[in-house]
């Protein structure tokens, strides 16, 4: 870490929002740090101030209620999610996605919200959360707003968040609880690796959704399908929206092919 920055760890929302408002673009939020510290080290991000939000009271809360669904706090780690009985029970798909992220010790730090806010096209929490209709609760000194996750991403590592805003929670509505779901991720090795492509498919009472990662600048969601649709229809819908590229990890052609295979296989599994 060769870049010099200052560090603060506010303990209240007010203090946190104040720091963000005061420092503007020069401030960066630190959750688990597993994306941020990598980006700082490589010089991609050069903050003046790093604000650790994990000390804010109640930020690590992970709660469930029949009316609200699942509420994931900013300090909820991927392992918190994995170890949560309610998650395993109501949203097993989320646990399946979470388990594919990095390694055990990284999952002890990496947060679910950090994964989403970082907005990598291949973020492993994205396809599942998209299928499950997650909403993003955004907060700042100026107040709160909420956007559906499907409208949150705007490009590679870009979101609708403004500099003074944080994501205060991700809410997974109760309506999609107990969905049948399946997550497939293509990697170069069995060990931890980023997704070359990934596909989540859910079926909730006949409504089928497909989430796709590493296939476009942002994670994709396809809605409006049913489990009566033939596989070819679903594949065609996917083909319509994906815009994969060739890069050092694999070719566009293979990405297209594997997305199709994954869609078919996952569909089969959730029917």
């Amino acid at each position, binding site marked *: *870490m060769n*870049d*010099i*920055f*200052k*560090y603060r*760890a506010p303990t209240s929302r007010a203090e946190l929002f104040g720091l963000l408002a005061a420092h503007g673009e020069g401030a960066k939020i*630190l959750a*688990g*740090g*597993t994306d941020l*510290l*990598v980006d*700082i*080290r490589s010089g991609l991000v050069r903050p003046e101030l*790093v604000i*650790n939000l*994990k000390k804010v009271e109640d930020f690590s809360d992970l709660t469930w209620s029949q009316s609200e669904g699942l509420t994931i706090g900013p300090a909820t780690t991927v392992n918190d999610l994995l170890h949560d009985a309610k998650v395993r029970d109501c949203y097993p798909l989320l646990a399946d996605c979470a388990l594919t992220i*990095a*390694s*055990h*010790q*990284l999952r*002890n*730090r990496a947060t679910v919200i950090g994964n989403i806010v970082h907005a990598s096209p291949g973020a492993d929490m994205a396809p599942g959360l998209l299928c499950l209709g997650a909403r993003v609760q955004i907060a700042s000194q100026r107040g709160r707003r909420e956007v559906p996750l499907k409208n949150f991403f705007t490009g590679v590592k870009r979101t609708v968040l403004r500099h003074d805003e944080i994501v205060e929670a991700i809410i997974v509505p109760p309506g999609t609880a107990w969905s049948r779901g399946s997550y497939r991720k293509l990697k170069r090795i069995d*060990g*931890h690796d980023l997704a070359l492509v990934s596909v989540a498919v859910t079926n909730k009472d006949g409504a089928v959704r497909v989430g796709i990662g590493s296939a476009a600048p942002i994670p994709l969601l396809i809605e409006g399908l049913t489990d009566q649709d033939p596989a070819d229809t679903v594949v065609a819908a996917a083909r319509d929206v994906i815009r994969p590229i060739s890069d050092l990890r694999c070719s566009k052609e293979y990405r297209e092919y594997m997305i199709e295979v994954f869609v078919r296989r996952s569909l089969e599994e959730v029917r």
Partner: protein
Amino acid sequence: MWMSVEVNGHIYEREVTEHWTLLRFLREDLELTGTKDGCSAGECGACTVMLNGQAVNACMVLAAEVDGATVETIEAEAANGELSEIQAAFARNYGVQCGYCTAGMVMSVRELLRHNPKPTVAEIKEGIEGNLCRCTGYQQIIEAVLDVSGQVTNETKGGLKYV
């Protein structure tokens, strides 16, 4: 930033460099060099230490974040000059070659056994997935974990075959 942290049972009060990682703090400020740097990018696990009882990559934590926390490193694993059970099992099973991954490996194994005293081979592999080892091919490390968790049977006991 001025901070106080408990490392291996000792309280250290220090001015920390705010942009330093926990890894640099341990190695350079506290001179606890048993924890290794293999990538500084979260990929290799050589820097794995226990932070408030959980295994983490010390290169992915800022030093300032451990203010008020408890950290344990490889230097505290052996007590009174005696290898811990995990260390002894690594030694018995040839789980060490160059030794550069070893500190991190031992930490990850400790974390695994804390949650899961009798892990299956698949669970062991999952548990040390984040710790790269270029020398051993992992097999004898896995055997060491089976050994320390009391699961070595004639079937799981590895060995050289002769023809």
